[in-house]
């Protein structure tokens, strides 16, 4: 009786702990069943290529969130970075353009980092302010015009969005590459331990000699860096950019991070699960489109998937389905 109960529980626990993985497999199966094109190799590759943009940023934002903060500025930052790299491409060549673009995003990330890390201002409001300010700066920079790369066929810049590395599309290589780097950084390096400590219990972290401000500052730099990588993919994929190209990406990215089970309170989270979160969102969007649903159907599905997945995750941690709140 007793044993059966524990066994039953452990099955449930496995189910719950890997809830996101199960949700992923389920989603793939359902779509695969209803659409013969869904599981086709070229479709999977197309979706992976598309998810690279959100995916790379989601890695950076996961690290910020584990450190106990939010980053809503990534959408505008992506617009700024893409516009910069595309506009400068024809003027000064791809190499210098990329360099300047990275300087700009890292500067923006540093502002976030100083305000939230050292001045200890609330991250939600700071990054919201930056969301607005960076969008304005981007518009001022371009004077509201679209920017384009004139000669699309012979620039090596094409490799980021359209090319392959060893037969694998570059966005996929970058996505998984950044994910592995992030994972190693968080789990194998002292820095990772400090990020978890800072997000988990800032006070204890400070007592144990961790310089909270510095750690938070660095998480924002990392997040800005990943935005720069995403801008490379986006700019090269489209070979042009609108000023608001990144609008709304902040919420997509945050949804993926949340789906991956990273707690918004900080201190816990896992890059590899974020990757699955990104993939789920990408495949849901693609699957519904293939089945002929209108695009807004994905919002309804995302609503249910987010709540169910996070609920399972939370429930497994506290060993009970229902919350203890009276």
């Amino acid at each position, binding site marked *: 009786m007793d044993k059966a109960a524990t066994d039953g529980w452990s099955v449930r626990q496995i189910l719950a702990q890997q809830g996101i993985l199960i949700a992923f497999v389920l989603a793939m199966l359902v779509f695969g069943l209803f*659409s013969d*094109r869904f599981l*086709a190799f*070229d*479709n999977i590759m*197309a979706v992976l290529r*598309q998810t690279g943009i959100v995916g790379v940023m989601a890695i950076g934002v996961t690290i910020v969130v584990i450190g106990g903060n939010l980053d809503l500025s990534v959408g505008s930052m992506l617009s700024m970075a893409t516009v910069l790299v595309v506009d400068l491409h024809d003027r000064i060549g791809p190499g210098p353009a990329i360099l300047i673009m990275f300087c700009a995003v890292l500067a923006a990330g540093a502002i976030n980092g100083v305000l939230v890390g050292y001045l200890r201002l609330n991250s939600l409001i700071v990054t919201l302010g930056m969301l607005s300010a960076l969008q304005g700066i981007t*518009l001022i920079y371009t*004077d*509201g*015009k*679209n920017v*384009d790369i*004139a000669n699309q066929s012979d620039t090596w810049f094409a490799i980021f969005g*359209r090319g392959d590395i060893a037969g694998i599309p570059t966005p996929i290589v970058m996505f998984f590459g950044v994910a592995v780097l992030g994972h190693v950084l968080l789990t194998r390096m002292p820095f990772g331990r400090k990020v978890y400590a800072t997000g988990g219990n800032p006070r204890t972290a400070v007592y144990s000699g961790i310089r909270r401000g510095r750690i938070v500052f660095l998480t924002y730099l990392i997040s800005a860096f990943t935005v720069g990588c995403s801008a490379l993919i*986006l700019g090269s*994929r*489209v*070979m*042009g950019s*609108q*000023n*608001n*190209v990144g609008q709304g990406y902040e919420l997509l990215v945050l949804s993926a991070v949340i789906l991956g089970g990273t707690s918004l309170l900080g201190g816990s989270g896992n890059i590899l699960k974020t990757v699955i979160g990104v993939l789920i969102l990408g495949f849901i969007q*693609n699957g519904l*489109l*293939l089945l*002929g649903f*209108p*695009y807004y159907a994905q919002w309804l599905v995302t609503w249910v998937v987010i709540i169910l997945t996070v609920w399972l995750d939370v429930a497994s941690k506290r060993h009970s389905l229902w919350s203890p709140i009276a």
Partner: protein
Amino acid sequence: MSRMNKLALAAATAITVVGAAGAAHAEKIKIGITQNNVGVDSYQTTYEKAFIAAAAKNPDVETVVLDAGGDVARQIGQMQDLIQQKVDVIIIWPTDGKAVVPVVRKAHQAGIPVVVTNSNIAADGMDFIAAFSGPNNIQQGASAAELMCEALGNKGEIVQISGQPGYTTAIERQKGFEDQLAKSCPDVKILETQPGDWNREKAQRVMEAFLVKYNKIDGVYSGDDNMGVGALNAAKAANRAKDIKFVGATNFAVGYEAMERGEYYGSIYQSPVDDAEAALATAIAVKAGKQVPKLNYFETPKITKANMDKFTKPVF
């Protein structure tokens, strides 16, 4: 930059000579404009610049230039602010054809004539406006349909990428296209329509899904060239661009270039400069009490590789 200087100057004058302002500009016509969403695409930005430039050339005109950022509520607020300032004419580029009707009526009741530009307001509001000035989007959709029929030899299967849902221009172009297509070449079938939100990357993503879903696509109609080029990008990446005819609207520089290379079949030429100048001229005429037709459409001809040398390359 010059606008910022003007602004700083205006602010400084206002601070030093508060109250003395009233009598100074009695002779000038003051025109207020609230635009839809400048900066979201180059068309609107070019329009704004052309409008300001045209107004600056006319010494009798003073302008108040506002932008609603795509938000209906903010546009209503800006209309109220313009009525409050008692401008002589208001030009509005509606964020939504229906939702601005009451506030347009309010301006009408306050005795301020309203000129609607670029994208018309709903039929209920027509009584309260002095005139509409802009392109005929239904006609544009129909012209695009004729281009499509011509490109496909009246037979084939196509997909459609429409503009921002709920936006009058998008709805009218789609309607004009679908109606005319059924009339001119009923053997061309629309397989599916999805919105691309006037966004090139979004259109590219939508087209990628279409390419996976349909083995045979003969043509793509996009609500503007910006999205059309996104679709072209996707088709090129899948090595299927050669089998597909692309037709767009509002010819963009990137569309013009693709047409030059023979990758893009045709589009509709619509100049934001003409659009802006027509709106300003209409507003001045309305204020002067001249008779103007209610609907002032400016020319938006078809453009294909065959006749493109007659058009200058769009600056946006």
